[in-house]
């Protein structure tokens, strides 16, 4: 599979490592050149594209049209939303987005009702875990 990741932070870099190990083709779009270089050193692979992942032209250059999965993985919900908007408009790729504010989930899900964006909220995941822990203790 060809996976396009926007955002080369911690999650993005670990994701890439795991996906490459599983035999997938991966491209990461990262705005900060220094971060992108570090990532390549760490991964020992030429997988990054330096550019703004919220720019339709940059995503096109990264291979959006032939991507099977696009992961919007920056630390900012608004940037992830724009990545999803561009993906939904220009490709048929499955879209996965990270959200920080769980309230924002609905907005992401409203972008495409037929083929909804998979939204992952770490805040919610942790809250769920706490909830389970608390109910188990009772």
């Amino acid at each position, binding site marked *: 599979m060809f996976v396009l990741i926007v955002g080369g932070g911690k999650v993005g870099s670990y994701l890439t490592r795991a996906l490459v190990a599983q035999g997938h083709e991966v491209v990461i779009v990262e705005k900060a050149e220094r971060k992108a270089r570090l990532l390549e050193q760490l991964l020992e692979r030429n997988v990054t594209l330096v550019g703004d992942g919220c720019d339709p032209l940059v995503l096109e250059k990264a291979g959006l049209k032939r991507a099977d999965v696009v992961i919007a993985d920056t630390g900012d919900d608004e940037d992830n939303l724009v990545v999803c908007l561009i993906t939904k408009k220009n490709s048929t790729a499955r879209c996965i987005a990270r959200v920080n*504010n769980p*309230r*924002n989930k*609905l*907005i992401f899900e409203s972008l495409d009702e037929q083929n909804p964006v998979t939204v992952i909220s770490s805040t919610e995941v942790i809250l769920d875990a706490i909830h389970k822990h608390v109910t188990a203790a009772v």
Partner: protein
Amino acid sequence: MRYLIVGCGRVGSTLAKLLDADGHEVIVVDEDPNAFKRLGQKFKGHVVVGTGIDYDVLKHAGAAQAGGFVAVTNGDNRNVMAALIAQRMFHIKKIVARIYDPTRGMMYRELGIDTVCPTTTGAKMIRDVLMEAPWDTLQSFDFGNVTSLTATIGASDAGKRVADFERAGRIRIAAVRTGKSVRVAANDTVLAESDEINAIVAPEAISEFAQMFADARVPENVS
């Protein structure tokens, strides 16, 4: 009418003051409490400290009862996200977002959000002043792909027909104003001196259009 403005920078604060002076109920949202200083002493509206891309912040600001919503923070992405929250979670009727990137602005319009792009509008206004252009730039279609211009017919062009100024696929005269009466132009409409025409002009034909009206150039220091 209640208006919600997200972003209290120069544009946001100026707009807030205009609407407030016009008797509307205005609520301004900004992350930085210092930004509200721009509103001045006379501002009678409300302010809310917080981010405009948070459902709870917007709800607290009264988005549910707002008739209009404006997103003018300094981030395009933030503006489109705030606008989508206003549209899909609060069902606000009129939503306007400022988007600096013209290509993305077009994309967002397809989502039902009105966008204003100061990049193309500003560049065109500067061009008009720079070239001492014999027209005024009106609202443009598709972010600069096609421009709607008005120009005044000079003495040397009096008696010409609308068709004489048209160029297939590049210049089309839409309307003619004579004094207070405006009519949709026909090919054989005869133009008189000081008639005003409204033309739709392709970018590659701007200079050609300017050449046609070079005689009608308004003298300097009109203001």
